[in-house]
């Protein structure tokens, strides 16, 4: 029986809420270094890559390597019950998963492990030319602003500024970001590239971004966008999104 404990159950709740928007089922791999999940949505437009080092867990008892196959629609229903200050305890064997949310009360849930083969996915090979690091709250706010007006968003980099714009039927939105205005922590522009993405995929990340420490966006001309969400204890949730090519 493998056993994991994590101090902040709500952090997992929000990460899983975002992951569930991309994939219905997935296989976590747990080895001596930590927990990993890499999966792609059926239309192969968005990819999720999660890594949480074992040091971030208060308990991490895994004998050699273990896999945990879950249906995200099922487990998110349980994780949504995670309250502030709840601790997460997770035990599993080949057939079942036991989730325990421990705070003011102890709530135990048991559900079957699903049968799902583990397929190792490669990482997309992309040379990024624009890198922008920001506070996670800024990222969530921008996406919410852009969602109002259109379904695609264009990232345009200038020497010291990054513009996100969206063109709706009648409305337009533009967000200007720079280190000078302090809404970016870092901006590195190797080439002044401009690429568009579907907002719906960026929206999928908002929940997970809410509980992240920072968000770093990487992209280049007509290439996928990579968003690195950094978490407390060295956890990282990366999303890749395919570009829109006109």
């Amino acid at each position, binding site marked *: 029986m493998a056993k994991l404990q994590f101090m902040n159950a709500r952090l997992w709740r929000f990460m899983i809420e975002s992951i569930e928007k991309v994939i219905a089922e997935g296989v976590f791999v747990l080895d001596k270094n930590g927990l990993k999940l890499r999966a*792609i*949505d*059926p*239309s*192969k*437009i*968005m*990819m999720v890559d999660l890594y949480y080092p074992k040091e971030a867990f208060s308990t991490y008892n895994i004998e050699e390597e273990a896999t945990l196959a879950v249906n995200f629609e099922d487990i998110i229903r349980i994780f949504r019950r995670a309250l502030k200050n709840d601790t997460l305890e997770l035990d599993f064997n080949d057939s079942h998963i036991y989730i325990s949310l421990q705070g003011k009360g102890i709530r135990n849930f048991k559900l079957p492990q699903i049968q799902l083969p583990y397929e190792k996915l*490669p990482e*997309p*090979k*992309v040379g990024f030319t624009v890198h922008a690091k920001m506070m996670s709250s800024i990222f969530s706010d921008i996406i919410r602003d852009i969602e109002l007006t259109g*379904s*695609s968003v264009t990232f345009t980099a200038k020497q010291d500024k990054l513009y996100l714009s969206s063109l709706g*039927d009648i409305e337009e939105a533009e967000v200007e970001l720079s280190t000078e205005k302090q809404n970016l922590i870092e901006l590195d522009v190797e080439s002044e590239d401009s690429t*568009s993405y*579907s907002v719906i995929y960026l929206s999928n990340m908002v929940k997970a971004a809410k509980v992240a420490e920072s968000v770093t966006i990487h992209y280049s001309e007509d*290439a*996928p966008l990579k968003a690195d969400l950094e978490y407390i204890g060295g956890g990282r949730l990366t999303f*890749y999104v*395919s*570009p*829109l*090519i*006109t």
Partner: protein
Amino acid sequence: MGVNLRELIASEAKKEVDLRDLKGRIIALDAYNMLYQFLAAIRQPDGTPLMDREGRITSHLSGLFYRTINMVEEGIKPVYVFDGSPPEMKKAEIEKRLEAKLEATRKYREAVETRDIESMRKYAQATARLTSEMVEEAKLLLKAMGIPYIQAPQEGEAQAAYIARKGDAWASGSQDYDSILFGAPRLVRNLGITGRRKLPGKDVYIDIKPEIIELNLLLRALDLSREQLILIGILLGTDYNPGGLKGVGSKTALKLVKTLGGIDEIIEYIEARTEVDVRKIFDYFMNPVVTDDYDILWSQPDEKSIYKILVETHDFNPTRVEKAVERLRKAYRENLKARVTSLDRWFG
């Protein structure tokens, strides 16, 4: 209609998905199959199809218009493939279908006399007939909508499978399984009926989702070659040998093909027990008459032409049509003109 492989589709080979999971995918739709589905499904409770002021049926146009818009809104890139002239060996099947429709028409009239609404609906659906006028109108509507269509020289399903095999489409789309036998790497079912649907004869509603069937996974699950799968189809009955071999169901067919193993042995076995030219049918599935003469390009919807066909000619509600055209224009701009590529390109 079509070969019935339903019982043989192993659960590993099929996957139920949401429309949005097909985003960015080009799907070669069997146009006749879709239009028949619309004709059968889009009806009033007593089975009367939608009609314009002059009594002309418009169910097929309504389905084609609104269903296609739903698909492109979700990012699916449809291309419709129309049947050409049927191959000679389909004659028996076509006669059989005509007879069935005449029988349904007779039963429909009976139901009308007894005011049996449930039966009226059931038999009215079975009488659904697609005239060449209706087909031409469907093509005009697609053209106005900016959605491409391809004219197959013979079977639409064969052409759709060919397009998918060449990689010009991601999958074929139909309710029938024939395109799998024609070699389509993937078949998407339920695209014309996705959503909440009433079960026939019952007051029960179910949620229908698109279903993807993968040829490779199917062959692997059944441990068969495509040639063997075609022969199973022939044993069960195809459009070219309706009914198949008497008394042979899915299980027996699978067992027979595995026991006999070789293609020639299986063909000989079936030929000894039926009148039809099994070799000819087999060859047709392997090498159907198809064309390379097609373009798959989406274009800006032509509002005036859509309005003319639907509102001016066929009395569709102008407000509904205008709203739908608005959705189509937006979907064209976002999903058809702009291309969402898949991450595949960067996995190199």
